[in-house]
């Protein structure tokens, strides 16, 4: 079975499995929206300043808010099917557009943080494996546990104190120098400077996870018979590690990386708040402050879908890395 067939089959299976989950999440979202205090009519009335009982009733009728619950659920699903997540009076634009504007910022931040976490985690984990059971391993193990215990928003603030306030090396917030029209490398460097601290704050927790995971996976793989076979072939240790150990150890590590997308989105909410990073998390914070529940639930729904997509991607990656996938 070729790699392509394997990946194709996995894709089909994953897609089918995701359907009931998506449906369940949508239903849950709908009921949370129902629970939220105030409805669209209240919001619009609030925006307008004042409204009589009659105009409220008229508004409700116009938006179908006086319909029975099931009809409203149907309407909600109908709107979703047309990619409509509702309208935010506060921002004066459809929620879907609003989220679309902010999504790339969050995705970029998460991608960079994930990359940093994986690279640092793999490096630390490999180091711990080499010294397994000895002092450097124990020390790194406690350090990784420390990283695991630090709240992202706090380390974010502390990094600002050190690198922005005290040393003045890096900006303390935003996503680019306002009004600057730098291009090329200089522009990229300007963007990168704003990226370093938020990405690091978000990554730290996951560095700890990947370091420990890498250590466990590599120790596990190292004891496998095929590693002994590789040594019996006369391969040098570096090639054994890269070609035989790491490739196998990557399988559990990629699985975990996909599972962390949801957690990272949560982390992005607080980190973006700290650094005024214009992303979904910052939008969620603003929506909380303004009690804009349509936006908030739109974010919840969309981020859940993002997790499903990430999980599917990992499944495909998995199918590509591990030839045994289709058989199991």
């Amino acid at each position, binding site marked *: 079975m070729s790699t392509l067939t394997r990946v194709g089959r996995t894709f089909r299976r994953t897609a089918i499995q995701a359907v*009931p*989950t998506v449906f*369940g*999440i949508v239903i*849950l979202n709908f009921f*949370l929206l129902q*629970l*939220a*205090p105030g409805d669209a009519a209240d919001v619009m009335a609030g925006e307008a300043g004042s409204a009589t009982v009659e105009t409220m009733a008229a508004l409700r009728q116009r938006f179908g808010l006086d319909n029975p619950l099931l009809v409203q659920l149907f309407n909600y699903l109908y709107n979703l099917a047309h990619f409509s997540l509702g309208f935010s009076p506060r921002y004066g634009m459809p929620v879907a557009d609003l989220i679309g504007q902010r999504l790339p910022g969050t995705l970029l931040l998460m991608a960079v943080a994930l990359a940093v976490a994986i690279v640092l985690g793999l490096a630390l984990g490999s180091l711990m494996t080499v010294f*397994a*059971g000895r002092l450097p391993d124990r020390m790194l193990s406690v350090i990784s*546990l*420390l990283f*695991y*215990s*630090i*709240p*992202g*928003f*706090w380390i974010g*603030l*502390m990094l*600002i*104190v050190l690198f922005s*306030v005290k040393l003045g090396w890096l900006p303390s917030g935003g996503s680019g120098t306002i009004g600057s029209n730098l291009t090329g490398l200089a522009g990229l460097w300007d963007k990168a400077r704003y990226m370093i601290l938020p990405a690091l704050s978000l990554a730290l927790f996951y560095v700890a*996870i990947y370091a*420990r*995971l890498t250590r*466990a*996976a590599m*120790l*596990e793989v190292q004891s496998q018979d095929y590693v002994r076979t590789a040594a019996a072939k006369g391969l040098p240790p570096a090639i054994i590690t890269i070609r035989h150990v790491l490739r196998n150890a990557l399988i*559990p590590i990629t*699985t*975990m990386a996909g*599972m*962390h*997308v*949801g*957690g990272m*989105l*949560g*982390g992005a*909410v*607080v980190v973006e*708040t700290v650094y005024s990073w214009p992303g979904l998390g910052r939008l*969620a*914070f603003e929506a*909380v*402050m303004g009690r804009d*529940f349509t936006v*908030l*639930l739109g*974010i*919840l729904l969309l*981020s*859940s879908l993002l*997790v*499903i997509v990430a*999980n599917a991607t990992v499944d495909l990656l998995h199918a590509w890395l591990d030839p045994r996938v289709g058989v199991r």
Partner: protein
Amino acid sequence: MASTDFAAGDARSRRLHADARGPAAPPEPEAKSWSNLHAPDARSASAASVPIAVGGRALKVFLSNPNAMFGVVFLSLVVLAALLAPVLYPADPLSMVARPFLWPGQNPAFPLGTDSMGRDVLSGILHGARISLFVGLVATALGLGFGILVGAAAGYFGGWIDDLLVRLIEIFQTIPSFVLLVVMVAIAQPTAPVVTVAIAVITWPTVARLTRAEFRAIREKDFVMAARSLGYGHARIIFREILPNALPPLIVTSSVMVATAILMESALSFMGLGDPNVVSWGSMIGAGRELIRTAWYLTALPGLAIVFTVLALNLIGDGLNDALNPRFSQER
């Protein structure tokens, strides 16, 4: 694999079926009184019988782990702080007691200084331990209770009940939990009980998944078969035969859950979604944030309290894992 290393971290595992692990590790010493061998015939048949010596050995391993002992000592100090806070600082920690912006060490009466409103930082930190521990412990207890019920039902009964519950778990594990938490607290208004229940709502799936995997592995064991053949009811088999044997990974998870709950609570309070009438470490950081350029100690000190409390819990979790899962600790 490393699933017990970071029980909270891999919470979003969707491969529920892949989790059925090998034979369960023996329960920890505290569970001795919960003897799993109620079925007389099972006594001889049980492969998973739990000699007290094994539990004792686990305790010994735990006690001889310096990291875990550091965790226990530090956590005890936090508990002590929470208990003594009303005695040492009977006044409301939210009330103004001195000149604002006293730096730590500037005035011996306020060893950790005062904030922008002249409130005593040390008093705030001591009182903050109360809400952190309360939310951490109660949310974990609720999450454990509900998660065990769901996971036990799914793992024990199997069939359509299992299918249904697994779907439910999967839905909750797919939704980014912190975002869901923010939504729930924002909708229901932030009070300490709301925050606690909301944290329990996002943590139970981890427990359910773990419990289910354990139950699936244990339900086929001889002593469970024996109990079944003796005609014991489902409830009795679930709670008195299987559950005690499924406890070790749950105990490890619960210490990590308390840590996670404390982190979640502090993040919520930081974002202004905490109980406004109670001082919390997160809300202190949130308040100090605006003054970070001039008085960064207001952010640093409560943050250190969070870091060390959470670290202590994680060290304890690690120690418990080493003691209760020798299969994993061998790799260390």
